[in-house]
């Protein structure tokens, strides 16, 4: 199963990290290749993004179902392809290291199914970890940027 986990430490309290992450609209545009998303309910949303799979780019639509919401440390979710035959899951985890330090982890696990599954999974083996890393990094950088502006302001 193509999967990727990436951890980043931030010099911020877990509450501040959570404050940003809890609202999907804050970080949705940071998803690599993000095009649009729609929040259908507290637990369900649909996403459209352009995935760069090396040979070409593919517009992918998927549904995200949140399966667990443990404030301020864990969100788990399932992924289902709407225009492609794949499924998967992932989580976001925040752990307080100290009062002012937080470890932030993003995880993605996606498997393509169907006749072309073996080929697509080969592509996803590099795509999924890269996406997990890029998204976690982007969120971390955004939080730092906001916090810096807030402090300076």
């Amino acid at each position: 199963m193509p999967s990727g986990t990436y951890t980043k430490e931030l010099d911020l309290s877990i509450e501040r990290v959570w404050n940003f992450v809890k609202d999907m609209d804050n970080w949705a545009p940071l998803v690599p290749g993000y095009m649009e998303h729609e929040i259908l309910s507290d637990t369900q949303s649909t996403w459209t993004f352009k995935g760069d799979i090396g040979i070409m780019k593919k517009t992918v639509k998927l549904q995200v179902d949140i399966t667990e919401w443990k404030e301020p440390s864990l969100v788990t979710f399932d992924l289902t392809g709407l225009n492609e035959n794949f499924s998967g899951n992932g989580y976001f985890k925040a752990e307080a290291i100290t009062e002012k330090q937080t470890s932030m982890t993003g995880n993605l696990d996606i498997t393509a199914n169907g006749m072309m599954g073996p080929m697509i999974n080969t592509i996803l083996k590099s795509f999924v970890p890269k996406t997990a890393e890029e998204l976690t990094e982007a969120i971390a950088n955004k939080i730092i940027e906001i916090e810096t502006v807030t402090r300076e302001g």
Partner: protein
Amino acid sequence: MVIRKEINWDLETDVIVLGSGGAALTSAILAHDQGAEVIILEKADQVGGTTAFSGGIPWIPMNRYMKDLGMSDSKEAAKKLISHLTGGKEPDPAMVDVFIDNGWRMIDYLHENTPVRFSVPAGYGDYYADLPGGVKEGRSLDPLPFPLNELGEWSEKIRRNPIFPPLTLEEGGAVDPSDIDFTIVAERMEQNITTMGRALVGGLFKAALDRGIETYLETPGKELVMNDDGAVIGVRAEQNGQDYYIGARKGVIIATGGFEWNKELVRSFLKGQITHPQSPATNEGDGLIMAMEAGASLANMGEAWWSPAFVDPTVEYEDRVYNQIDSQARTMANSIIVNKHGKRFANEGSTYMDFPKSFYTYDQTTQSWPNEPPVWLIFDQQLKDRALIVTMAPGEPAPDWVAQANSIRELAEKIEVDPDGLEETVNNFNKHAEHGEDPEFHRGTLFFEQFTTKFAGPKACLGPVSKAPFYALPIYYGALGTNGGPRINEHGQVINLHGKPIPGLYAAGNAAMGVLGPAYPGAGGTIGPALTFGYLAGIHAGNTSSREITKPLKATL
């Protein structure tokens, strides 16, 4: 403009090759092997040009691989087939002889002097194997898989091929994708082993690297430099936005691909538009423009390697929606292709070169072009259930870019095709298709159609469009490349308007006139002549006496 002034060269060499596709790399290798110093200038940020984008199959009569398998062939047979297909419209019949006489020599040379290897794909004959002179196997050669890691730091610089999975032609790289074993595909991808066009380019480029031939990416040739005698002695290229003058003591070989992405040139020379070229977007006719500026005579300008284009709008290649090369579904049972009037207009299973020729038909009665794309592939659930259509896999829901409806009339209304016309067409087609017949266009009777059904006979190509839901996909004007360009002789030299060679100027591949005119005899009808005339140009340029390229010029322009 051609430059005629004294130049302080940034770099001097013997032969400059413009482009890095099959014709370019072959010419570079041959020029080097005659003792010349060679450099390659490539406009794109990747090596391989149109060849890497393609199936990489050269069509070569009397080649060594067919001989090894005991297959017989002759010049007379090959010429008979080509002559039938060109109908006398080839730009220079003598060049057909040159191609047949030298194609197999070129293959021998590559086999003996480079890592390039081919096999004969079983059951893959000429597209018109049933015509006099046609063969049912042997002339179309399949590049053997090539491990790109052998190219070291260049392994990631070979142009991505979005069309073909890393399978050989025989393994199914270009047939019904529903039959592909995707576990082999996955293994090859893991090991960075490639096939088809990328494999051919990989082998050729390895040969170029082994010879120390330098390649400059993102360095397009822009203008030719000529001396007082009218000989080409160099190129003004551009690199990082700066002029870069390179002198060439023996010659410049133009192998920059076609002009299918240059709307102005297409409008100037072709009989209609190409809205969806199926090639690298860098093919903008740079070489053609330079050759025209140097006074080249042109030939075969109204022709192209035609191909119907399909589109999955969710797939992009180099930041453009990718124009897919044809679809096997076009030739399969339980489908038809209609124009905006809902009428069929050709045998849907004819070759990808032949079918689009109908797009340009003019109806004298209605004073209109009735088959102008988009035309529509209409198919039913039976076909949907068994075939991979563009990127839509069997058993999966149709994506939103595929029109679908529960009745033919409703489908016609959705795609703005005449509903009465389409209903009548489908009813008529079904009536005959149920008996395995197509009295209107004789579907199933062409040799080419049997590739898809694995020679199951004419009736396997026919089936009614009868099981709802019904689907429609647009088909657009496409081309694998144009194949008109500067007129060339038996050495690949560019000929001027007075019938004389322009000293120091050569052309090959889609940048030159297509020596087969309107004919595309089989898989590799494009690359076979391209490699052959690249081979000839390389030999001649490499053996040319060096010209003085540093003396002051009298003329200025």
